[in-house]
């Protein structure tokens, strides 16, 4: 299987981080989308139906958790795959997010980008 027809959505308010992840996944051949906050991310998600959403928690305006809750109310969104990106390794937020069906989370900077790609590929069944 190829990454060509797989859609990845990155929702992250920090432009530099978002751009780095975006660049990495583009290079890996994914069809990559990006949103700068929860509201933009939700709109793209509901329009594009990405295979996986990489979601930051703390964001201005609509944060990650609010976006996740709204997404879960959508017919498609309730089964969407979400991987949590967090800078805070915040136990409380992570726990709440896990209850909303996040399959994993990672603390940015603890992981290499390669590791994130591997994790996503595993999840999408791309060897």
């Amino acid at each position, binding site marked *: 299987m190829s990454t060509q027809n797989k859609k990845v959505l990155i929702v992250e308010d*920090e432009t530099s981080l978002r751009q780095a992840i975006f660049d990495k996944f583009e*290079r890996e051949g994914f069809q990559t989308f990006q949103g700068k906050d929860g509201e933009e991310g939700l709109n793209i998600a509901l329009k594009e139906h990405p295979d996986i959403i990489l979601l930051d928690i703390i964001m201005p305006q609509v944060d990650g958790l609010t976006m996740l809750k709204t997404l879960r109310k959508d017919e498609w969104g309730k089964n969407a795959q979400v991987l949590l990106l967090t800078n805070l390794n915040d*136990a409380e937020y992570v726990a709440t997010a896990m209850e909303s069906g996040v399959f994993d989370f990672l603390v940015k900077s603890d992981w290499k980008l390669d590791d994130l790609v591997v994790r996503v590929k595993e999840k999408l069944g791309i060897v």
Partner: protein
Amino acid sequence: MFLKYFKKVRLNLTTKFVVLFLTISLVPLIIAVYISYDSSRKVLEEKAAYQLYQISDNKVYQIDKYFSEAKKAVAVLARMPSTISSMEKFNQAFQEHQTNSLEYLVIDKELRAILLYFQEASKYDDLFFISPEGNLTFSTVQKHASGINYLTDLKANPDLTAILKSTIALLETKISTFKLIKGDKIRAYITSPVSNEGKFIGVIGVQINNEGIYDVIKDYTGLGKTGEIVLVARLEDQITLVAPSRHDPEGAFETSVELGSNHGIALQKAVQREKSWGITTDYKGEKVLATWRYLPNYQWGLVVKMNADEILKTANELKDRLAVVGTILLIMIILITVLMARSVSGPIKKLTKVAATISKGNLLARARINTKDEIEELANSFNQMTDNLLKTQSRLKEKSEQLAINLGQIEIQNKELEQEKNKVSQEKDKLNAILYGIGDGVFVVDPDYKIMIFNQEAEIISGITYKEATGKRYDHVLNFISEKNGKSNGKFIREAINSGEIRETSFDTVLVKKDNEKIPVAGSAAPLKDSDGNVISCVVVFRDVSKEREIDQAKTEFVSLASHQLRTPLSTVSWYAEMLLDEDVGKINKDQKKYLQALYDANHRMVELVNALLNVSRIELGTFAIDPEPIKFLEIADSVIKEQTQQIKEKGLKIEKNYAIDLPIINADPRLLRIILQNLISNAVKYTPEKGSITIEISKKDSDILVKVKDTGYGIPKSQQSKIFNKLFRADNVLNKDCDGTGLGLYIVKSVVEQSGGKIWFESEENEGTTFFTTIPLIGMKKKKGVKVLAS
């Protein structure tokens, strides 16, 4: 009662002894005399009563015998032929010619002489014949038989009629009752049937009196000098003597006693049919012992009595004798007691005299007593005491002279002392001025924890005045508590006093002010010792650290925020460097790769530093969680060692693992355990020179799992060992060894270990190596709620 009185009343010894001894000896004596007299009296009385009874029985027997013989005599008379023939003749004459006829007189003249002879011989009062029809046909008393029919004329002589009927019907000899006739004597009748050749022809009767038994009554054998026998009969309310008595020989039918009077009680009881004995008053008014009984056959009362005095003569003699003996005894007791008392009181009087002499001032007087007893001992002690008094007096005299000299010296010393006191007072004022001027709260407690000094700043901080604080236990006045759990935190003062070492407040200490406001404080307690090393007081210095706390809090929050902000750009740098190194965007040459790698490594160290700073801020804000779960200890240890493989290989270190095989699965927060092991092992790797060795030992010890990380590294200089767990501290000897480190690792490890219930310590020798020990309790890490986890 008596003893009380005896104690109160003022008597001399002799009188007291006499009264006491008399009381002791006389009471039993009197009781004994009385008992022996009383019992002998009773015995005598009973014995006499028994004797009187016997006499009385004997008299009754004799009386009965006398009258039964009288009856027999009449029966014999009835069978005599002259009687039979006389009766035949009188019967015939009476029937045919009446008693005043010539024929009757002829027969009477013929027979009267013989019948009179019979009467007089037997001392009968009358002898008479009665025909079977009841007619009196002959009588020795009446010249002419009256012709009375005793069977039909019932009133003529009822007593006679009664026995006559019985004699005629049964043909037996009968005796009538004995009747006392007023103004006369006693009379009774005996009647006996007379038969001629089997044919009943009439009754022969005699009238008798009781003179025949006078001899019986007069027999006083066994009755001593005063005893007598009294026989009485009752006629209405008069009880009359019917026989002469010993003391009243003319008294028969003369002397009488009224029933119910207080004389002749025994006689009254006897005629009232009682049988008994007792001491009573007799008919003459004398006190007697008497037995009394009733004789129903004759309707008499029989009293046998003796004067009480005669009976009790022996007892009375005994009484007199006892009185004589008692008097002699009494005199002897008094004499002996007086002598005894004198033997005691004599020497005492002597001693008293000597004491009086001594009390007047003559200390040379001595008591000379030679009684060989306690009094002599007392006199000796007294003399000894006087000797001692003499000695003491002379010693006192010396002392008082010495004292006068000393007093002069003391006066001089007092003046010097006064000067010294003034100096000390000035010093004290100075000290107080300093103490009160100090900007920190200062108070001093004695070893009993009581506040002695309390300065102005202490008043301001605590809101408690000097007056309220001094003299009281510090823990009753100043409430130092833990900010976290509200428990008392004031023990540092107690510990300082007990250990003799300086103690500081724990970091979470707050002081509850008088108005209940809580303010954070920091302070220390320093014990003061005397020259022997005993703690004599403890100086406590404390200050309000509210401002410092606020600054520290702000700093921690700043670090947290800054670290967070730092991480974003660090991540960006890290990830782009990674992409370049991975040649995602095209090939790079060797130098490019080298520089990029350096960039990446430096960035990574920055990430680590930021993580550590974040952890520190979380520890200090208290926001990190401990979340224990069952873990495999050794697996985590191995994975931590594996992470370090590259560095270990580069330095050529030898790693020795020494794991216990029986290690149980315990509850621990894997993230925190990892932080602990990572820090300890990476430190060992970092601070051990090339070719060195590291030993990691994990074992069960008591109720803990003990982790021992031993290296052959640079070691920690002795002078800096106490600071090794301080935040941002790094030992001098490693600073110039090109080892990178944040100075936060051990601070974090210590905080984590201690908050999860374990301990951490180390042994180190510079240039020899260091061994770190840490324990995790077997019961697991303590759970702690928190919103943040620590980054590894």
